[in-house]
């Protein structure tokens, strides 16, 4: 791969699933401990946090960890007009002892948010969701972000030895984090643009 032309902040390197979930301090999340906690609260819980705080990343990671134990996992995005119906179908199809993972739970209406956990309990199905604010579901994890976390993410991106500290500096990371008020996704988008403009400017000067 031509590494000099690859933007390390591209979606293919930063999308949920590519980076291991990290806590606010930049340390790797203990998925096994969270699964124990999920079982302790009855198999239904929520991951909460603001936009771009890593909820979807953590949900995907936990879904993989649950799947690795042999449990059937169904993943649903609840956006769109058929969101509640999709979740209901997933619960019915998944059945007993399975787990349904729902991203963007707050996109469902209040009736669905109140009813679907009851349906899940009746079917004996686990339910793990992401949302911005606390609801009736017990909280499994609260995602929070720090500039140190964003810096740690940068250090996991491809070829960071070649560009971190030169094309993208720690000051850029801190500024992006502050400008987007802790939204990691938006900060990474900004760093993508910064990387693209600076690396091209350098190339243009060379030519």
């Amino acid at each position: 791969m031509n590494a000099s032309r690859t933007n390390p902040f591209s979606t293919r390197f930063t999308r949920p699933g590519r980076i291991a979930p990290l806590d606010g301090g930049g340390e790797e999340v203990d998925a096994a401990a969270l699964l124990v906690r999920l079982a302790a609260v009855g198999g239904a819980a929520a991951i909460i946090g603001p936009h771009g705080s890593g909820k979807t990343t953590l949900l995907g990671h936990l879904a993989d960890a649950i799947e690795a134990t042999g449990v059937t996992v169904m993943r649903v995005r609840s956006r769109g007009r058929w969101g509640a119906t999709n979740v209901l179908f997933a619960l019915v199809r998944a059945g007993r002892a399975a787990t349904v993972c729902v991203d963007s739970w707050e996109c469902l209406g209040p009736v669905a948010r109140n009813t679907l956990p009851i349906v899940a309990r009746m079917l004996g199905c686990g339910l793990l969701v992401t949302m911005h604010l606390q609801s009736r579901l017990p909280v499994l994890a609260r995602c929070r972000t720090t500039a140190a976390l964003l810096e740690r993410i940068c250090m996991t991106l491809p070829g960071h030895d070649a560009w971190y500290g030169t094309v993208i500096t720690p000051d850029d990371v801190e500024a992006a984090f502050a400008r987007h008020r802790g939204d990691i996704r938006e900060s990474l988008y900004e760093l993508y643009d910064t990387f693209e403009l600076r690396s091209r400017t350098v190339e243009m000067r060379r030519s």
Partner: protein
Amino acid sequence: MSDAQDRPVVSPRIDVQFDRPQRRYQAGDRVVVRYTIDECQGDRIHAVEQSMLWYTEGKGEEDLGVHMFRRVADPAMMPPRAAVGDFFAHLPRSPLSYEGLIVKVRWCVRVRVFFEGARDYVSEHVFEVGDVPPARVVHMRST
């Protein structure tokens, strides 16, 4: 614990050679690729997947199109220490490689090796199709 479990996992080395060392092609051209898989630590190769595809790279949704795919699982073609193979494909008219600011289109060859025991390894090698000039940064002057 067995020797196999004690042994650290080392990625195999996959060398890919294109028929054009510059890796520059035009739409409709034939791309010939030869690859060598080495340093498998004696692990037996179960199958090799050869593919030629394009994908978008940028900061939004991603897209991908597989132009050619072949799975080789013939035991006679899988020596334990090294595997050599080749494949070719004729390129379509589009998409052409493009180096944009918010989106890039890349063509690549992927060789994916499956070892017995469920371990697999993917190697990706980019090449260029067409002569679309890269996007340039334009600095707008405010009036």
